[in-house]
Each structure stands twice: as C-alpha cells, then as structure tokens.
C-alpha cells in the first residue's frame, strides 16, 4: 500500500528547514506559502528520506476568495505520497512559480490550469493555452464563468 505521509509531520520538517513557509497543515495535506513553494518542492524532491521523484498530478480549485493548487507527489522508491497545496488570492492575475524544472510532468498540466483556471505559472517555458484557442474569453473552470 502506498503510505500517505502525515501532512503535519512533513510540515514540521519543512518548517525546520524553511521557517514560516507553511500556512497550515492537516493529516492529509500541507499548505505552503506561494513564495516558498519552489524551495519546499525542491526540498521534498531532493531529501533522500522523502525522495518525491514522481509528480502524480497538479490541479486547481476555485474557492471564490482564493484559488488552491494541489500537487500530489509520490516516491516510487519508498512507495509513499504527499499532497501539498499553494494558494493565491489575486483573481485578476493569479500566479505561482512553475515546478517544470523539477518535474517535467508538470508541463502540460500547468498549461491546462492556466487555460481553464487562469493561474499563470512563472518560469514555465511555454506558458500558453493548451485546449482552447488564444483569445478565448475567460477561463471556463472558474466558478464565476458563465
């Protein structure tokens, strides 16, 4: 069985390394500050005891007052997984750092989120729409899109 690592325990490890980078944590997930997302992601990937070498998926949820981007990470070696989240509250031009250089698997998924949810990933080598055409009005997966 894939062990879902406790978000609370990982959060203390992250806090030790990067103080004040965790917004909140539960058993299921760790919410990290968007400006420390890259550091935390690299830490999770490169620490041998965690070894999160595999990015299962990225997705985004619109909660009206903020967007939540969800990353599920796995280690194929240790067979454990972790969900980390990042939030951005700017509805006009929400942005988060891109993790493509850590996990190339994020490439199309970040473009998809940009296309359908309108969150821009900074540092992505090809940040443009993936399914809809350039010039499509709005981002359909937002809750206020009619």
């Amino acid at each position, binding site marked *: 069985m894939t062990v879902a690592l406790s978000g609370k325990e990982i959060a203390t490890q992250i806090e030790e390394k990067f103080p004040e980078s965790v917004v909140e944590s539960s058993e299921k997930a760790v919410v990290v500050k968007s400006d420390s997302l890259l550091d935390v992601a690299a830490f999770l990937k490169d620490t041998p005891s965690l070894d999160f070498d595999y990015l299962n998926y990225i997705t985004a949820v619109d909660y009206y007052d903020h967007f939540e981007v969800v990353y599920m990470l796995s280690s194929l070696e240790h067979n454990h997984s972790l969900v980390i989240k990042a939030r951005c509250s700017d509805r006009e031009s929400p942005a988060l750092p891109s993790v493509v250089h850590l996990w190339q*698997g994020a490439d199309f998924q970040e473009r998809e989120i940009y296309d359908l949810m309108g969150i821009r990933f900074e540092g992505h080598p090809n940040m443009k729409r*993936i399914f809809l055409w350039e010039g499509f009005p709005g981002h359909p997966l937002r809750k206020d899109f009619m």
Partner: protein
Amino acid sequence: MALKTEPFVLNLGPVHPSTHGVFRMRATLDGEVVVDIEPVFGYLHRGVEKLTEQRTYTGIIPLTDRLDYIASMSNNLAYVLAVEKLAGIKVPERAEYIRVIMAELQRVAALLIAVGSFLNDCGAYFTPFLYMFRERERIVDLFEMVSGQRLTYNYMRIGGVSQDIPAEFMPALRKFLDMMPRFLDEYDQLLMQNEILLARAKGVGILTREQAINCSASGPVLRASGVKWDIRKADPYSVYDRFEFDIPTGTVGDCYDRYRQRVAEMRQSLRIIKQAMEQMPPGPVKAEVPHLLHPPVGEAYGRIEAPKGELGFYLVSDNSIAPYRCHIRPPSLINLTALRDMIRGWKVADAIIIFGSIDITVGEIDR
C-alpha cells in the same frame, strides 16, 4: 557556394497521424529529421470537468465512458472508486470481483487496440489490426451481455455494479480464456521476431528510466522503461491484493519494449481474470446507496491502473448533490509530456511510430 537551407514546418494532422483521434503534431524538420515537435490539443475538448459540476454523482458515470472511450469500464471504475472513497461506501464482495473481471477484460481489449494500431503505424497495414479486432470483438460481446452496450458501457455504479452478470456470461468468459492465450502465441509467432518490426522499432524512441519518472509517465510506457510500478501492486484497490500476477517490465524503453510490454500485460490480465472467476462469491452486487448522494465536505483522490496508466479522479465535495470540483488525471495527456524528447532527432516516419507506441486516446486528453 553553400546551399541556403531553412527549417521546414510540417503539420501532422489535425485529422490524425494514424488512428488515435483528432490530434496535431507541429513538427519542425531539417530535411527529413525532426528537430522540434509540438503537440497541439483541443480538437475534442468538451469541458467534461465543468459539466460534472452540474450533475449528480451518479449522473457523471456516463460522462466518464466518453473519456478514454476504448476503455470505458476502467474509467467507470476509477470514478466510482473515488466517490466511494469520498463518501465512505463499502462495496459487496461479489461486485468487487465483477469489477476486477471487467477491468481486466477491458485492459486486454484496450491493449489489443494499442498493439494493433501501433503495428499499423509500423506499416503492417490492417492485417494484425484485424486479427486484434477479432479478439476484441469477443470481449465486446461479453460486455454487451452484462451492460447492453458495446462501447460506452455505463456499467459500474457507486456501491457496486448496475446488475449481476447473466447466466450465459461465465461459460462465454471461460471459452474466451481458453482461446485467448493461443491467439497471443499466434501474435508472438507472427510478430515478435518479425524483421521489419525489429528494424523499425528496436532502439527507436528511447525513453530512459529517469526521464520516464520525471515526466510522470505511467502504465506500460513507464514500465517499458524498466520501472516496476503498477498501482494494482503498489497501492492495491478493489480486491487486487488477492490475486497472483507479475509486473512485466522492459529494459531499454524503446518502441519495441513498449510493444512487448503490452503483449506481456495481456497475459497477466488473463491470469487475474482466471483467479477472479474461481474466487467469486455469491451475494448482492450493489450496496444500498441513497439516490441523491451527499458526500461529507472533503476531498478524495481515487486512482486505478488503467490500460494506459494512472487514471485518477480528484473530487472535492461541499456536501451538495454535485461535486464542487472534479479533476481527471488523464494518463494519455501526461504520457505525451516526453514525446518531444523522444522524437527529436528521428525521422518523420519514426515520429509516427514513436507517437503510436505511447498509445493515447484523444477523448481523454482533451476531456
């Protein structure tokens, strides 16, 4: 005087480079060599994720049929598993076994199409494809018996399956299991050492182990690169922990390995079906589930090892009758991440095979 040359842009598609749906590859060529390639999606985008937000949990099941439409049963299963996880529903034993049998039959059917169309791409025009369709037809007949449908089955339900298998199903399945290994041997005889196939696929489009993991590849594509990772073993769902089967892996990660990987996986699926048939207990096939489901506030991710890789549904519930958010993790889309690295440096003709060896369904990419 040097000849002036410039790169040439060639659109492969959007009709289709082979038989995988409406998809376009924008290739930049230097002579016959591909120097860059960009996949272009969106021709089949129907906004399934948005549609789910206005449907009841049960009403979403038919939508899942239309994602990877050559493996509808697998899509059904991944979705209902996610909802059951979200709402904490327990499924009767018999239903679990029926689900496993259907999912594995579906895997064989989908892999037959994958192998068949790959051989088409290699130039073995429609002869092997027709053979594979002959066998797939028998599986489709079996599915028709249980669900009345031949493509979009809509068979699984939250808490079980829509109805028990009919009396004539088991004898027909037994007959299929007797025949199928012989057919697989026949393919091996015809194709495994076929000189043209070896020449075209061996060493072509290599995806290394590290690249495969970094690109989040899954399913046969990941395993053909030598990574022993199968969700049925690594994170068993349903009753997969009760069956004995092996995880075949490749060594090189070239097109030939991916082809062989799929044939090997079909044999393992047949093993699982045989065991599931023997162990299947009698009993109900559907748990008592309220007609309009209100899962508690929260989120869940349910995933399965679909024929193409990790298929998952991420659901967020706000305690209403429709999901607040439903995200689908499509193996077809994510497996294409490595396409550019695999194709660059190869000729146009190889690009078609490399693309074919990944095995995609556009319904799942675009959603």
